[in-house]
């Protein structure tokens, strides 16, 4: 316990340095700014803003990224409450009751409850991350290459099973991502692989280029095709920001339950945050004495999913920081950013760079605080932003992304790669392939290959090692079980229902 406090104190010491507070504030601000733009989800926001953090020192960069993450998420909620355009899956549920509340003139209450719920969930989850971080790092010591490989397989399968759409197609896209990650020099021999004799490809395909292409450019091309729907933007002034005492009492239970549900589901590898918000909403509806209010502007219907999704967002740092395995696309982006700063995510971060590890955990809490502080007064600004027509918005985003990609390595070739991945992403969307698993596969690829090679070498070429080593065998067993369950027709229907609701 005293360890925990000492560690947190160290973390806050780092995070509370004026520069780092500034980075956190700046991150939360730009994160919200971009996240609030309709049609741009959390992943796209982070992908777009990655380059601006590259010039900072590692601790500052990661703190700023964490700020961007929370900002983007909160921005997404704002869009779904005010305009009923959920920027991404996690805020779909928020839109159900949140937008109804907005139509009844209670947008202010919905927004502030979302912020308060998120903040509360953030506080709890921060302590949880700090408390669980150390013991889980110990667990990592039991892991050899075979276990790591199996754990990554399990993580990928989790991501597939919990995502929407066809399981088979998602697995195929993951393998495509793994294959893409192998372009470039071989880790051990340095031989150029699948580079088509292009010198620029010798270092592999840049992670930021893929992310920007698939999530930024492809989304824009896609959005251009959609008919300009008469956006339901609120023209009424958002007034009465503070929730009433009754609102607070009504939602307190929902916030607490949402936090618990979210914290638990966030730790699981896979799309924790999405499932968390769905689960919390459904749970709240079941618990309620007046379930008919849900969908018609029930404040619990905003409080529960928002708390859950923020708690899950936070606890999903646990697998990343302790085992070095990103559980979802956002965390995959974080890994990308860490690698660019020369940090290999994993258990060694905690022991070798404690100020980074604990500083980041403390900054999560700070980031949440920033959201409450900056967003409540700035709601008016975000509403104005929502009125910028898309025809002006998207060229600005393209210019911004181009400069961002170019600035990473000062390489025009990177911009070209991003354009190519824009086309690939557009094609994937046209054929109902989810792009997020591809990115996850791409990020995990080098780690998986390295551990696979080592495990095979240690086992003297014996493939059965993955099943005969107990931990590895159990992990793979769970993965296979999940795949079978998800592929069964009955479960498939239920999954579809969950995502339709």
């Amino acid at each position: 316990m005293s360890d925990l406090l000492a560690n947190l104190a160290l973390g806050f010491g780092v995070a509370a340095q004026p520069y780092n507070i500034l980075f956190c504030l700046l991150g939360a601000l730009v994160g919200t700014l971009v996240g609030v733009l309709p049609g741009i989800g959390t992943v796209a926001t982070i992908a777009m803003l990655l380059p601006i953090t590259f010039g900072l020192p590692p601790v500052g960069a990661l703190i700023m990224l964490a700020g961007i993450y929370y900002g983007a998420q909160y921005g997404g909620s704002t869009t779904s409450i005010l305009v009923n355009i959920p920027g991404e899956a996690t805020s779909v549920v928020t839109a159900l009751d949140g937008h109804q509340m907005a139509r009844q003139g209670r947008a202010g209450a919905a927004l502030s409850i979302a912020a308060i719920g998120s903040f509360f969930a953030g506080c709890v989850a921060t302590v949880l991350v700090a408390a669980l971080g150390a013991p889980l790092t110990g667990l990592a010591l039991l892991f050899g290459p075979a276990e790591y490989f199996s754990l990554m397989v399990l993580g990928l399968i989790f991501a597939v099973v919990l995502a929407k759409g066809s399981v088979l197609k998602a697995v195929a896209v993951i393998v495509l991502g793994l294959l893409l990650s192998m372009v470039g020099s071989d880790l051990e021999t340095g031989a150029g692989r699948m580079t088509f004799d292009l010198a620029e490809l010798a270092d592999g395909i840049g992670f930021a280029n893929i992310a920007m292409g698939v999530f930024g450019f492809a989304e824009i091309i896609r959005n251009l095709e959609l008919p300009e729907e008469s956006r339901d933007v609120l023209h009424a002034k958002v007034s009465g920001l503070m929730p009433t005492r009754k609102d607070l009492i009504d939602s307190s239970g929902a916030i607490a339950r949402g936090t618990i549900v979210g914290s638990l589901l966030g730790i699981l590898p896979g799309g924790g945050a999405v499932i968390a918000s769905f689960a919390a909403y459904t749970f709240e509806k079941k618990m309620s004495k007046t379930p008919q209010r849900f969908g018609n502007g029930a404040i619990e219907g905003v409080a529960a999913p928002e708390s859950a999704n923020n708690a899950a967002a936070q606890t999903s740092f646990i697998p990343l920081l302790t085992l070095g395995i990103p559980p979802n696309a956002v965390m995959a982006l974080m890994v990308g950013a860490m690698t660019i700063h020369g940090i290999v995510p994993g258990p060694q971060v905690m022991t070798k760079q404690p100020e980074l590890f604990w500083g980041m955990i403390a900054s999560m809490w700070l980031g949440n605080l920033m959201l409450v502080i900056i967003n409540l007064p700035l709601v008016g600004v975000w509403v104005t932003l929502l009125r910028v027509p898309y025809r002006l918005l998207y060229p600005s985003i393209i210019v911004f992304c181009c400069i961002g990609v170019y600035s990473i390595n000062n390489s025009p070739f990177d911009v070209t790669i991003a354009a190519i991945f824009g086309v690939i992403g557009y094609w994937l969307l046209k054929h109902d392939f989810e792009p997020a698993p591809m990115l996850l596969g791409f990020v995990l690829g080098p780690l998986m290959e390295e551990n696979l090679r080592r495990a095979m070498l240690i086992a003297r070429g014996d493939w059965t090692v993955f099943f005969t080593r107990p931990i590895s065998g159990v992990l793979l067993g769970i993965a296979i079980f999940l795949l079978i369950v998800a592929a069964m027709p009955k479960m498939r229907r239920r999954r579809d229902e969950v995502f339709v609701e």
Partner: protein
Amino acid sequence: MSESVSPSPKGRGFSFSIRSPRDFWGGLVLVAVAILAIWASRDLPGQRGFAFGPGTAPRLFAGLLVVLGTLVALVGLVTDGPRIEKYKIRGPVLVIAAILGFAAMIRPVGLVIASYVTFMVAILGSREMRVLESIIAAAVMTAFCVFLFTYLLNLPFQLWPRF
């Protein structure tokens, strides 16, 4: 390519039509990509003894992708699914042209002109473009980017063409 595919007749009777063209063609393209990867890694040495060579993993995963792509295509053949949405020309072509244009311009003409032209080309991708508004917006955005990237973030960009 997709035009020749007839819409799926609700699964009635026995027919050879492709019932889910999105999955079918999607799967086939994945197979093609995998074969390209196998071809591209043909010269890489493979497994030696117990040790993987540089070519082992690419061929392993490309092989897996061939299997998975085939499965996706087969599933597309036998289960009903939506048709492929028509590919639009204007938006994608102009957006991609704008990005490629940026890549080509940034070195020779510098940030200011590259940003401005990229914005103007990209905005043509939308049908709702208005001339005067676009010219002003492009200038504002260019100024904002120059301010953000060169002054605020202090990145070493060349602003104007070098003669």
